[in-house]
């Protein structure tokens, strides 16, 4: 199975539904942090151009806030794509980026609850 297929299966996203309106990127709070922007994820997955995305820091910059999913007029769900590509990149690395024991020392009382949960989702294997 090639990478594109894996991403599509893992994410359950139908990239063909995208009409290239860019609303995902218009809504993205991490836009400026990202090398590749949400709409580019969709368009590059569509073309099967997955490897640059896997290597890019962008997959870790996504906040998983789901604004893009919420706003997309065609129900494409870019965040799920990014998540899938991140998993694709992270899984072969073999170990968790963060261990449960490390967490208390990293906690900041200002940190929103969701960010912690998101961190688990993003940085565990």
């Amino acid at each position, binding site marked *: 199975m090639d990478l594109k297929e894996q991403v599509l299966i893992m994410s359950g996203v139908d990239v063909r*539904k995208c*009409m*290239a*309106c*860019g*609303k*995902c*990127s*218009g*809504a*993205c709070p991490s*836009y*400026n942090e990202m090398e590749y*922007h949400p*709409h580019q994820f969709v368009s590059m997955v569509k073309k099967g151009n997955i490897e640059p995305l896997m290597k890019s820091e962008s997959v870790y910059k996504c906040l998983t806030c789901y*604004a893009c999913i*919420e*706003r*997309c*007029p*065609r*129900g494409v769900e870019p965040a799920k794509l990014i998540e899938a590509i991140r998993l694709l990149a992270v899984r072969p690395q073999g170990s968790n980026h963060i261990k449960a024991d490390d967490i208390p020392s990293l906690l900041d009382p200002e940190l929103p609850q969701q960010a912690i949960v998101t961190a688990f989702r993003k940085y565990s294997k």
Partner: protein
Amino acid sequence: MQRIGVFVCHCGTNIAATVDVKAVAEALKYEPGVVVSEEYQYMCSEAGQELIKNAIKENALTGVVVCSCSPRMHEATFRKTVAAAGLNPYMLEIANIREQVSWIHKNIEEATEKAIILGRAAIAKVHLNAPLTAGESPVVKRALVIGGGIAGIQTALDIAEAGFEVDIVEKNPTIGGKMTQLDKTFPTLDCAACILTPKMVDCAQNDKIKIYSYSEVSEVKGFVGNFDVTIKRKARYVDENKCTGCGLCTEKCPQKKVPNEFNLGLDNRRAIYIPFAQAVPKIATIDADYCTMLKSGKCGVCSKVCTVGAIDYKQQDTYVNEKYGAIVVATGFNPIKLDKYDEFAYSQSADVITSLELERLMNAAGPNGGTLLRPSDKKHPHRIAFIQCVGSRCDDGKGKSYCSKICCMYTAKHAMLIREKYPDTEVYVFYIDVRTPGKNFDEFYRRAVEEYGVNYIKGMVGKVLPEPDGTLTVRASDLLNGTQLNLSCDLVVLAAAIEPDKSARPLATMLTASMDTNDFFTEAHPKLRPVESPTAGIFLSGACQGPKDIPETVSQASACAAKVIGLLAKNTLKGNPCVAHSDELLCNGCSSCEKVCPYGAISYSDKEFRINGKMVTRRVASVNPAVCQGCGACTVACPSGAMDLRGFSNSQIMAEVDAICKW
């Protein structure tokens, strides 16, 4: 016993390539009742038809089976052929051996066998066919147009022009519709009122046209050529015959806090009002929801100031019954509600407006007298963002899946008008695609960009943030530059999707006219019959059928009128003879059939029968053949088998089943 002729068509090689047509003709020759069985290159050709005609005459045929293409293709052709040879046209059956055999099967043996079986089924059916004659019904030479917008107006004017009477039913106090609210029209930029109001006046003055304003259709009975329509005339508490439209009452009414729907609530009107100066008919209407007199019985100012005594607080809804030969639906459209699009802050900021609201803001008769000012602080906006496709092309369940079609053009118009009138104002248009097909349309859009310097940005807006300083931050991706913009604007204009008017759905039910899932009326054929509904006698004009701009609406309205005129020009209509009928001796009078009939074609009466020498009174059903469309729902609802369908009778269908299962 019928004398049946079988005619097998080669359709060139379309059939003959995969079906052994000679074998088919030969096999069917030995079926009971078959006296002649022939094959020919092209049965539908003149020579082929001649062959059938001669065979009918020479063999004194009473029934004909043509094995050829789909009956949807040539049933009518061959019916005419057999009729020309003196047979009843309904003594024909077609075995579809092209679409259902030769085109889908590759194995010649298999295909030939199937063709023979389909031929046998058709023969079995034709054995039970009976000559049918279509009933005739007279045509009432009067048309009803539901909806008095530009579509309805144009259709009515064209029909009246041809000399037929037309009634317009408009639910608002005035005709004119959405177009009255527009400022200028694309691509010519002439003023909407200047071209519309003369047509409204024409309607009022045309003695063939009768306008029922502030009225609704409440019941429709009957069928093509003979509709029986009840029109509800809502009480407007003003005697239409006395009111001169002087407007004095609308100035004196003490209730000043009524949102003015004509200006989309951007300003207020009185409880008694005339929607706008050029209203037709120009008659005042009391808004019962706000009138103090009607609500509490205390006031009566309008009545006091009215010099002609036209005010009538006791007025009631009245109902008018009228017969029509044809009904035109011209119910139009509305912008969708934007409450599901929080990201654009429409409900949070007064300075986020819809395009239609912008039309009113820019209109000389609008709330600001034509000066473009922000609704919140009445200041001049220096940077305006237009957001396209708000609710259009949406697959997310919040909006509409279709393209609303008119937004690209009117936005270009707005941008252009603003840039022309206020050159110091920057205009940004955020688009997904710019869709401007049409005569002089793309040129119009290019002018906006090239001559007027409108900034078109490809990329959808993700969020509009109302800032504390009263500005609006528009966050969007600029896809071509690969940047995210955070644009501070003074005014944001949303191109809201358009949807059919809410009154269309219940109306469709009344008319038994079909609709698509978006509540647009379905046309009889998307290409070949675009202005007719599949329900006979119902015609479609304007945006009720799909999003349309004014030029398109007007041309469809005229096309629709042409179809109506074509119908009204006939004195009688021939019906479909394949209709249900009830065997009164079997009928129990239980009303099951009546309940499932979508056309109300079944009625009951007590009839006297002589049964076993005694007179017995029984309640029995009878079908009005002019109303029945022949669906057959009643035939299955009937437990006693009294209801049957001509042309598709129980015995005919069972004979086909038998013939198919036999081999």
